[in-house]
């Protein structure tokens, strides 16, 4: 039996919500009963530097880090970080980048991370209700509506691709 693992890498800059986005995906997969591992490096990265975070889920996940060239979905929040991380994608892997979303349509610039999760959600077999619950669990209540909208915008973009 081949154990199927889904590998997602998030990349961006400190302060963009890279870690928040990876937390939400990890929670959504966790709620579906998958084995999940999420890895990140923080510390110096809080000061505006490059940040990446890996999420892996499936039957059984071993290493918490996605091996080079085995990324199924690369979600990049900052245009200048696309080229740095492109090499992590496997052949045929999917790149999701900021200009997939019409920034002017977003309810708030800070909700780009959740909008890109919306795009990603169209590719993954996780129920929308788990996504919404995971988003609500990760963010304060006053931001729920705004991020629900951002997620819906991303999801409709993803569904059209």
């Amino acid at each position, binding site marked *: 039996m081949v154990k199927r693992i889904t590998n997602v890498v998030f990349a961006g*800059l*400190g302060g963009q919500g890279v870690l928040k986005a990876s*937390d939400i995906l*990890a*929670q959504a997969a*966790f*709620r*579906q*009963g998958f*084995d*999940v*591992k*999420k*890895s*990140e*490096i*923080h*510390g*110096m*990265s*809080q*000061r*505006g*530097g*490059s940040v990446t975070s890996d999420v892996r889920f499936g039957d059984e*996940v*071993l*290493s*918490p*880090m996605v*091996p*080079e060239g085995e990324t199924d979905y690369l979600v990049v929040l900052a245009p*200048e*970080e696309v*080229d*740095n*991380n492109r*090499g992590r994608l496997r052949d045929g892997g999917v790149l999701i980048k900021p200009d997939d979303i019409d920034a002017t349509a977003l309810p708030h610039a800070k909700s780009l991370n959740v909008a890109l999760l919306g795009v990603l959600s169209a590719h993954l077999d996780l129920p929308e209700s788990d996504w919404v619950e995971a988003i609500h669990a990760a963010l304060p209540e006053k931001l729920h509506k705004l991020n629900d909208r951002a997620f819906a915008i991303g999801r409709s973009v993803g569904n059209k691709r």
Partner: protein
Amino acid sequence: MKESNRYLLSGNEAVAQAARDAGVGLGTGYPGTPSTEILEHFAKLGGRAQWSPNEKVALEVGLGAAFARGRALVTMKHVGLNVAADPLFTAAYTGVSGALVVVTADDPGMASSQNEQDNRRYAVAAGVPMLEPSDSQECYDFTVAAIDISERWRIPVLLRMTTRVCHSLTVVRRRDVGGPPGAPGFEHDIKGRVMVPANARPAHHRLREKLADILAWNESSGPNRWIERDNTLGIVTSGIAYMHAAEAAPRASMLKLGMAYPLPVETIRRFAGSVDRCIVIEEGDPYLVDAIRAAGITADGKAEMYRFSELSVERVRRILADDESPEPVPPKGKPPALCNTCPHRVAFTALHDLDCIVAGDIGCYTLGALPPFSAMDTCICMGASIGVGLGLRHTLPEDQARRVVSVIGDSTFVHSGITGLVEMVYNPPSTGHVVIILDNGTTAMTGLQEHPGTGRTLDHQPTGKVCYEDLARSLGIRNVHVTDPFANPDEFGILLKAALGASELAVIIARHPCLLAASKIKQYERAAKEQRLCSAVTNTGN
């Protein structure tokens, strides 16, 4: 599918959860990436947690709690154990009456540290058992095991984590964990706890007997896993390296060691004898492979190039294939920088403009070494700025000595700068000296933790507050200035220039809250004020 006893936790959160489930009565430590969240989470779960001024004090407080039959958890990053090593080595001799678990969070690859020392060496040097978890479930299980071992053998236990284990989220199931066997209380044991030579000599013998006993237990029923698969390749491994190895070589037999010291050498010998090729996959120093070979067991290790930085699945594949070709260089990302609105920027601009020789220290402000400031010349360890600055002043020709400045943050000053200030008063350089305390009112680098200079405890409640200017004046330093670099950037430069020109000792405190912490600090202050008003009303009511 939905199961209630199932949690997605970081390794740090899992340690805190286990400590809470086991009824740990006191958690102490000093913030340090990647260990910081353990005590914060322990407090969030309702545990009693407190930041100490530094790791040495944290370990001493934990030891006192364990002398009183309590269960204590002490947390720090790897370099913190250097600071706490003094009490650790002798606590191994005295042992404990309750439980003492010391977490060392190592940082291979130096995501946020000044070195990548491998603290497995400390277990051997101090003679203290060490457990090494590889994911959050083991962080939970091994914290419980460490408490059990500590109580059973009355010995401190080290729990060695690494950045990936601390910060990765993985699935955890909790279990029923018994609380402490008895209530705290004190029994005199002068021979056992007063380490004068006559008492310490037999204590050392007792320690070696305990370790021999723990070794026998580790051989027969320690937290090690022998996974028998294809016997052409056998991998001895521990910690996060196990996960990478299990993914890189799914068909290999594995001996996964949970206890890094004392090593179950006879188990390893049997394992090595059961496979055609035995290879040790470990992150960091060749600690396991050296010990295994010293026991006369034939085993391959990794090439020297893999001693550096973290391991990964692809690096383990290369080690297994004896591949020593140059590794692909990861693309350079954007480096971190001082925030645009950081109050420290004013100080580093002045230090740059006045062409100072800057002995620096550990914190966000170490980023002052980067362009455009390039205004830091040394950074060694917590508190080193003051001693190193003084040594430079004592030795450099006068025109250079006069440009030497020590720069230290507020939390770092409380941690290890106070003794440096005493040294400055005791052995002043002939040209005087200038110490700048960059006081942003928080431990910013590790994520805005409180410290004794903020006047608030770990959970942001008001408490006693250390005042740096009073402290400096009480030591006899006459030139002590407090300035707000944000409100008055020119004044900082004028003060610094004047201090550099005088042959006296000077302390300049540049005080402005970290912009990331400012709103939270205001909130805590408001809450404290309301609390005071409330208690005043209650007192009047009496």
